[in-house]
């Protein structure tokens, strides 16, 4: 008559399993569909958490399809931590392998963008580099930075920024048929995606791996002659994506 948590758990996420015997209603009869309250709570609460975390995917699929997808995902991939804010880390990978939605090939990339926004929202605070710190033209090319903890770079073969804007902003144009890199950054509390010009993601990567501004820019210009340093630096600074300004050699 002992209902172990193992037995309870098996029946909880698999509605095909019988309700464990040893669970009773008010009359002392078998609990029957009363067990469904727990089944329902778990699937609904996890599905709602997923819908909150992946607004772009939900917009693309519509609430009904997203709900059906979520019910499948949450049973197959229940959370592995009580930190529900990070639930769905492997949702992009799941979507990649989910046969019925293979025709929407950019869906996984969109899930990555949603998750990047979530990570950024909860990332550690760090004082951003201010434009006025870079006034000295003698030293600015020696400047070194790191990416802020709230900054996330996404490289996509899809027009990822355009898809996001078309679905999440009023009156944005239709996505163009081009590959787009996106920087998610958090000026204060609300993360924003930014479209990166070709070369800028590599440039930010070089800065983040310890290259000074001058050498990083020269290397990028060799590959991307149209790379615009002023515009790129302005975008990164305004987005508050850069931290840890120094003009010293990093060890």
């Amino acid at each position: 008559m002992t209902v172990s948590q193992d037995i309870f758990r098996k029946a909880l996420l698999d509605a095909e399993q019988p309700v464990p015997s040893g669970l009773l209603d008010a009359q002392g009869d078998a609990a029957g569909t009363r067990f469904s309250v727990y089944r329902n709570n778990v699937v609904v609460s996890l599905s709602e958490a997923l819908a909150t975390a992946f607004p772009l995917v939900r917009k693309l699929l519509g609430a009904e399809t997203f709900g059906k997808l979520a019910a499948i995902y949450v049973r197959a991939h229940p959370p592995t931590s009580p930190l529900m804010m990070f639930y769905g880390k492997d949702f992009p990978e799941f979507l990649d392998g989910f046969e019925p939605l293979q025709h929407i090939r950019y869906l996984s990339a969109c899930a990555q963008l949603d998750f990047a926004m979530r990570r950024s929202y909860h990332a550690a605070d760090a004082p951003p580099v201010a434009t006025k710190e870079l006034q000295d033209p003698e030293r600015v090319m020696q400047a070194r930075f790191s990416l802020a903890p709230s900054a996330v770079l996404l490289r996509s073969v899809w027009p990822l920024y355009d898809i996001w804007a078309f679905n999440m902003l009023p009156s944005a144009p239709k996505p163009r048929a081009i590959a787009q890199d996106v920087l998610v950054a958090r000026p204060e509390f609300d993360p924003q995606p930014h479209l990166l010009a070709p070369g800028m993601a590599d440039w930010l990567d070089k800065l983040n791996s310890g290259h000074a501004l001058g050498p990083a820019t020269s290397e990028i210009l060799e590959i991307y002659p149209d790379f615009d340093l002023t515009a790129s630096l302005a975008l990164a600074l305004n987005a508050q994506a850069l931290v840890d300004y120094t003009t010293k050699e990093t060890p």
Partner: protein
Amino acid sequence: MLDTSPRFDTLPPAPGVGYKPQHFADLMDAPGPVAWLEVHAENYMGDGGRPHAQLRALQERFALSVHGVGLSIGGEGALDADHLARLKELMARTQPASFSEHLAWSTHGAEFLNDLLPLPYTNATLQRVAAHINQVQDILGRQMLLENPSSYLAFAESTWSETDFLAELVRRTGCGLLLDVNNVFISATNLGYSPQGYIDAYPLEAVGEIHVGGHDEDTDDAGAPLLIDSHGKPVVDPVWALLDYTLAHTGARPVLVEWDNDVPDWPTLRDEAMRAARALSPVQ
């Protein structure tokens, strides 16, 4: 030197509400009868951003109750050491007046099921839950409050009543209790006993906080009433009456209005807090 001493050592015997970010500006501006706030521990375990900033602002102004929903105190496995460490860090950062968790389980192996799942009231459960409470109190260096669950079914194997089970946990661990009168009303209706009888049998001297909240009404296979703890509606009159009944025995206690789903606008929640203030006034 920075003053890091807690500003609020105890929850006041006054109304509180479950904190929702959409009410931040209203609470900072005109909290009405609200003297303290409850925050769900896990929502503040990210690394920074708005949740941390809001919590810093709120803790200057309100006594805080940190209410955990993820510790799985009733779990058959060991408590999650990483989660306990995060909780300890949050408590140090927040200096709350109270910490509470649930008589329930939510973690199984590596999985977190995000619901408060029920326990059989047996000697084995008692021993395990008492050990977990002792572990939490040792690590946090403070007393915790334990909340009674909403029950939709009973375990044939149970040998203790819920009230005796809670009293024995208090005796063994020195923990306090969070008495959720909405949960009492739900469980009593679902399992066919008297909610007043439950209060009469409950170790009221250990109550450090009281919850009220809304629930949904359904029926089971046999057509019997089945109430579901939804925290998505106003508190119903029989639950307010059960609060009055309880307060008449306990005297004034901190009373929290929980509203977690379909969160209403601030005036609606403030009105519920006003009603809690009216319930407290005869016993203050």
